[in-house]
């Protein structure tokens, strides 16, 4: 009886927690952040399923979560504002050779995080980056300076 409300509350609570935690868990997870995701997931499972591990109960929880996800996705497409709240907006971290320091500090990101992304694009030096953008999914996009 309590499984569906627990699953729905768990979904909403986790969405809020992960959203305010920072955008990093979306991509570029370090081992330290990996632990966080596993731990939070495990704890929420305990309160959702409780002492009833029956298939009926677990299927009920899965269906409630899937339904919530579908609803959130539906409203994200319908409302730009809702989409911003759930997924955020891109943030420019580096522009024309200038770090956007206060934004980086707020996002708890370091130059090494940007450089890690740059290396995957074959860019070996920070000076070769024209723009570094933190995307909504947590990835850092790098645009090369063409000069």
């Amino acid at each position, binding site marked *: 009886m309590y499984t569906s409300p627990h699953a729905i509350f768990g979904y909403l609570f986790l969405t809020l927690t992960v959203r*305010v935690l920072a955008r990093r868990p979306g991509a570029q997870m370090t081992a330290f952040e990996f632990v966080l995701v596993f731990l939070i997931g495990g704890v929420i499972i305990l309160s959702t399923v409780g002492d009833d591990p029956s298939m009926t109960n677990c299927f009920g929880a899965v269906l409630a979560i899937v339904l919530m996800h579908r609803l959130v996705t539906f409203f994200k497409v319908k409302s730009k504002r809702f989409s*911003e*709240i759930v997924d*955020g*907006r891109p943030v*420019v971290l580096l522009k024309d050779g200038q770090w956007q320091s206060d934004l980086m500090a707020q996002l708890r990101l370091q130059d090494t995080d940007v450089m890690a992304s740059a290396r995957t694009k074959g860019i070996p030096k920070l000076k070769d980056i024209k*723009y570094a953008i933190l995307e909504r999914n947590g990835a850092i996009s790098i645009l090369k300076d063409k000069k």
Partner: protein
Amino acid sequence: MAIKTQPVTDSVPKINDEVAVGEDLQFQRRWWAFERWIWMLFALLVLLDLLGAFGRGPLAKKHAEAADGSMKVDYERIERFSTPSILTVSFGKQAIRDGKIQLWVSESLVKKLGNQRIVPQPAASSIGNNGILYTFPASDVPATAEFALSPASPGSAELQMQVPGSSVITLKVFIVP
């Protein structure tokens, strides 16, 4: 059937008029202000949890005594749904009559607080008067009985306990989900 199409417009705001990013620093700063409030709320919730405002801590524990000293009860006034806890009843000397102690408890002990077992097991129990009357063999004080609870549903519960012929203790318990 033809696929519905619409022309591409420059709908995503650009930086330096060259890269379409869609950055909105005004929204971002508002969100960060909201985040700060949420973190303060989380910190407050953790503090309240440590203190026991949501059960299992110093604020949750309570002690009650019958006016005539027939019994004392140590219990948790904030319980958690489906989580085990112990309610301890310590009887006074006047509760022992003819080598036994009788204790009447209202039916919320079972229905709302989900009593699982009693230690020691009562020699007899009988139902009636919206509750249960337990009988324990007893010789002398200190004499205590422990009730293992596991609340069956969230909400508030009122539990009444009485040694027949003595004053009633009313315990108010709130069960958090």
